């Protein structure tokens, strides 16, 4: 294929991406240093670092830390729940595997809002849990299950779990059975075989899945917005707040870019970690 044809095929994509991904990021960078926005034009003017220094304000730092903690915990719990599940599916007989996978994929493809809502129906004051407990007589007043940080955590794990299971499953499925057989042939107990063969080889999948969960949780808006209270604000909520309510676009841009920076750092770290281990395992 001629070089020109190759470029012609790439051009529309590149243009679209530059317009909707690169340009916005650059614009936000400009905004984040803006001293003021003129009332008549949307364009930023002036130069200042105050928006970035504001990020270090304890009020905002707290939100940032909370987001990191929530995201980290969500990743941890997702791994705790998701790894054994992925392992179970990968080791299941072929015919059953399809159905088991389907059961993970359906929640994965179900609308995010719907899933969050389902959880809320379960947990709210007149929700199923409280109604059931009150009906039995265990409690008299409904428990405040929603609108706190714990609720956000449950919501994060609930919605992001399939995101971890699927790439992890893909990785575990490709693991060569013969390696395990070799380990056991050489005297390793099932647990030792898992620890010295399966676990190290599944690391790429674990890293990819964890990264996806962490980044999604970190930048999450919906779950803390619907299930969290005033005191469980995360970075996503802060950004939305600055852009749509406080109308402080420069500050909002600074936060968004700080979020971007952190996410890219995480992605880079995960890439490096994957490479040191020798990359993907293929059969």
């Amino acid at each position, binding site marked *: *294929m*001629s070089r020109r044809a*190759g*470029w012609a*095929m*790439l051009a*529309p*994509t590149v243009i*679209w*991406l530059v*317009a*909707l*991904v*690169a340009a*916005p*990021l650059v*614009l936000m960078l400009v*905004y984040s240093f803006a001293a003021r926005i003129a009332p008549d034009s*949307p*364009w930023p003017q002036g130069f200042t670092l105050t928006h970035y220094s504001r990020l270090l304000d304890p009020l905002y730092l707290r939100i940032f830390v909370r987001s990191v903690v929530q995201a980290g915990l969500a990743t941890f719990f997702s791994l705790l729940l998701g790894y*054994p*599940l992925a392992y*179970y*599916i990968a080791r299941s007989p072929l015919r059953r595997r*399809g159905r088991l*996978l*389907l*059961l993970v994929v*359906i*929640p994965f*493809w179900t*609308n*995010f*809002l*719907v899933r969050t*809502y389902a959880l*809320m*129906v*379960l947990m709210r004051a007149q929700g*199923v849990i409280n*109604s*059931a407990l009150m009906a039995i007589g265990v409690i008299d007043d409904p428990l405040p299950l929603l609108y706190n940080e714990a609720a956000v955590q449950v919501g994060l794990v*609930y919605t992001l*779990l399939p995101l971890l299971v699927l790439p992890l499953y893909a990785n575990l499925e490709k693991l060569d059975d013969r390696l395990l057989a070799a380990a056991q042939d050489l005297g390793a107990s099932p647990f030792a075989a898992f620890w010295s063969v399966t676990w190290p080889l599944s690391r790429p999948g674990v890293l990819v899945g964890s990264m996806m969960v962490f*980044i*999604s949780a*970190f*930048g999450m*808006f*919906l779950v803390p917005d*619907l299930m969290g209270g005033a005191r469980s604000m995360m970075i*996503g909520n802060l950004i939305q707040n600055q852009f749509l309510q406080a109308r402080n676009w420069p500050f*909002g*841009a600074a936060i*968004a870019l700080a*979020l*971007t920076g952190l*996410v*890219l750092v995480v*992605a880079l770290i995960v890439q490096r970690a994957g490479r040191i281990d020798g990359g993907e395992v293929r059969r």
Partner: protein
Amino acid sequence: MKRGGWLRLHAALVYGFLYLPIFLLAILSFNTSRTSAVWKGFTLNWYVRLFHNRLLWEAVENSLIIAAATAVIATVLGTAAALALHRRRIRGRLWIEGLLYVPLVLPDIVLGVGALVLFTALGISLGLGTILAAHVGTSISYVVLVLRARLSDMDERLEEAARDLGATPWQTMRHVTLPLLMPAIIAAVLLSFTLSLDDFILSFFTAGPGSTTLPLRIYGMMKTGLTPEVNALSTIMVLITGIATTLYLRLTENRI
């Protein structure tokens, strides 16, 4: 074996965790009571009201139009890009790959807010078009990902054989490469369609008044009060997703 037993129990519990809320939601959608979770009687009232909800249908229509347009545009553009990047020396390849990678890594909120800033700065008023532009912008990366995976799996000898037998590069692409890519192209169409239909955050920031999508409408309904209509709507959506996913997986299974 003992260990196998624990794994199975764990799996059952996790599946239960994933599905219990949805099942309960479905059951409640038939509940006569408006607010309480206590069962007060069977009714299809909420479904009926849903059916007559004009605003909702408008939102569904918008979502479907945008999703279809996104699927077509993103797949065409993405397929062309994947083919162009496939085993060819492109100057600036690293930049292009980086650009394609960004939407996959960045949280949607950053992309959404960025799009908002872009449109406002350029004086473009928000509407269905801006939603579409944002959706395509993020979908292309997924399309390229899916196609490149299939391309790298494809036996390169087949393209060589075609050239060996006298097919020009264009003929090779038409008669060999594209037919073999068809499963991946279909997967890409479905993927970008679903991502668009499902999207909340991007639409949240790029929608204008009167250009509501289904997720935005649902969000609105949720914020104004948890009416059982949302229960009914959610149940229907889960059903549709379930059926569509099952069909899709069955189809791709048989193909292999």
